[in-house]
């Protein structure tokens, strides 16, 4: 009995423990409140210097305009922590580690497949969510990673849509070209597109036959021979896989050598970039590019276009801005739904993403079990009077194809 009384007696230790527990219970809700109110720390890794500096800086424009747009969309604040990968895989890995050590709660980047692969390894190892803005190499989302997500089409998705969009355009113009010549740069990108084309071409039953493949060095400064060789094939269309400088060189040579095929169908960069349009003026009109682009008819696109025009007048909205914006949108949306910056909660929230008010073509942003947005669509865009119009897919189109190619 005495023992019982003794057991129920309130000791000094019990009082201290009780006060401690009460204090914890009282403070805990405020802690959660702070997590929701504080901005999410997002480490943005981009090649801001080195050979991809121009593209990295263009992606940065996407970052700059995103903060204001997220506010308009009533999304939580993001605290951007910038890092430069210097267009180098090892530097990308080191910068990702440093960002995490400095408190980054989520990573975004890094334009290039090699650099993104390195960052993905770090993110997975440290258990920090990573949203890829631009990188097309399929293996990144084939590793079984739990913290890596990609809202950008893979190489095979880009090629698949290129063939589908070409067929849509041929049907629209009621013309089925019978022959094509493929002029491609012989770097990693050019060779992978060539390999992919060879592997996928038979499946799509394209109306044309590729009569010749002409490879050239990315450092070539004169492409007169390449164009002469392509012209000599008498192919109806030119399929180009190039970068910016060589796209300009090929166009110049085509004009000088008076070669006007029915169309230039470009798979990849170069032919639609601002610098191409500015350098060639009216001679830039006509080529059709098959690229990851944006849907000009979506509501959020207008927001992005207006914000870009205000911040960087004279620069047209492009892939770099769109997919960098969407990567940050995914981060903000997940943070809003998770209600916490806990990495696991953020990763789970990203996995459950369903954003329909977005900019890229397709039904919206969502991720499959591998962390890939497999519903994304690529577009066919055409240069017209220094601007770009979307020809396909039909749901995203805002113009009819100008066909065949005309030269002054």
């Amino acid at each position, binding site marked *: 009995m005495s023992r019982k009384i003794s057991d129920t007696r309130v000791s000094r230790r019990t009082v201290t423990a009780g006060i401690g527990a009460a204090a914890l219970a009282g403070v805990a809700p405020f802690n959660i409140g702070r997590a929701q109110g504080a901005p999410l720390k997002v480490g943005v890794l981009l090649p801001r210097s080195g*050979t991809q*500096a*121009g593209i990295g800086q263009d992606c940065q424009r996407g970052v700059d305009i995103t903060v204001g747009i997220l506010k308009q969309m009533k999304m939580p604040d993001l605290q951007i922590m910038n890092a430069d990968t210097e267009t180098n895989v090892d530097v990308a890995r080191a910068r990702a580690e440093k960002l995490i050590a400095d408190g980054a709660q989520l990573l975004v980047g890094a334009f290039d497949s090699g650099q993104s692969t390195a960052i993905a390894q770090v993110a997975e190892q440290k258990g920090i969510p990573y949203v890829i803005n631009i990188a097309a190499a399929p293996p990144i989302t084939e590793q079984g990673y739990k913290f890596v997500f990609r809202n950008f089409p893979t190489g095979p998705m880009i090629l698949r849509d290129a063939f589908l969009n070409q067929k849509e355009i041929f049907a629209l113009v009621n013309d089925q070209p019978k022959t094509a010549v493929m002029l491609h740069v*012989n770097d990693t990108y050019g060779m992978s597109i060539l390999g992919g084309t060879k592997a996928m071409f038979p499946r799509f039953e394209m109306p044309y036959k590729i009569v010749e493949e*002409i*490879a*050239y*060095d990315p*450092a*070539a*400064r*004169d*492409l*007169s*021979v*390449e164009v*002469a*060789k392509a*012209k*000599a094939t008498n192919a109806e269309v030119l399929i180009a896989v190039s970068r*910016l*400088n060589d796209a*300009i*060189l090929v166009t*110049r040579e085509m*004009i*000088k*050598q*008076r070669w006007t095929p029915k169309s230039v169908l470009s798979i990849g960069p170069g032919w639609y970039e601002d*610098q191409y349009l500015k*350098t060639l003026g009216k*001679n830039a009109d006509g080529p059709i590019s098959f690229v990851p682009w944006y849907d000009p008819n979506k509501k959020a696109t207008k927001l992005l276009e207006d914000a870009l025009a205000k911040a960087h007048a004279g620069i047209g909205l492009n892939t770099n801005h769109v997919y960098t914006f969407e990567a940050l949108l995914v981060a903000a949306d997940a943070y809003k739904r998770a209600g916490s910056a806990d990495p696991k909660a953020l990763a789970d929230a990203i996995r459950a993403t369903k954003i329909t008010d977005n900019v890229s073509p397709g039904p919206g942003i969502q991720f499959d079990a591998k962390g890939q947005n497999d519903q994304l669509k690529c577009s066919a865009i055409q240069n017209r009077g220094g601007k770009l119009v979307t020809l396909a897919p039909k749901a995203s189109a805002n113009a009819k194809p100008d066909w065949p190619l005309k030269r002054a």
Partner: protein
Amino acid sequence: MPLDVYLNVAVGGLLTGLVYGLMALGLSVIFGVVRVVNFAHGEMMTIAMYLAITLFSVLGLDPLVMLVPIAAVLFVFGYALQAKLINSFITRPEHSQFLLLVAIAIILVNGLLIIYGPDARNVQTSYSFDSFEIGRLIIDANKLYAAFAALVVTALLFAFFRFTATGTAIRACADNHTGALVVGLDVKKLYALTFALGSACVGAAGVMLLMIFDVTPALGPAYTLLAFVIVITGGLGSMPGALLGGVLIGMTEALAGLLFQPSMKSMFTFAILVLVLLIRPQGIMGRRA
């Protein structure tokens, strides 16, 4: 493939080769007289190209109009460089000369990077897209103008060395350095003048190549190498050899690209070099040491 395709490509290669020849001529002249290999040759060419771009964008001056003024600027630059810096290295071992000129090349490349950035640049003249059609032959107007200008500059250089007293004195220096000193020639001044002439040549070639190619700061080393290949093929120190080497390399690049794969152009250029070194080590028109 139709015959006219071969003809078009060969003519294009010939015209580009003539400008290559002028570029390599500068290197050959400098080595033939001063006995210093200019490892900053391509970088000096890019300086001329950027000067032309600046004058074109600021004053709207056509590259062909700027040919003489820019060659003059490079002449002064080359003279100052030789007189103030390279001259003190003339008697030093070759590796010292090599390091000095490589250092100058690196400084020039990085200076251009800081000023102009890494992007490719070019000039867009009213005739940038012009070509002449003669039957089935289509000739690039820019290449034609550039090749014509290269021939004129080369002819003037030949005439200078052959018919002027200074040119004869420079040739005397090249033939017999000690003899030139004995007869009282100002060898240091003549060396500086030769380096200046070589620089002016590459400056003129740079302006003309700008009408054909885009320029980036990183272009220099590739053209230094190309100039070497040309002068070694043609004969180091031989002026006609440089021109012949330029034409040979220009046409080889063009025809190899057409007959095989364009990405194999450089391979054939270096194959010619190896062949010449094996069969005639002094170069096609070079003199045996």
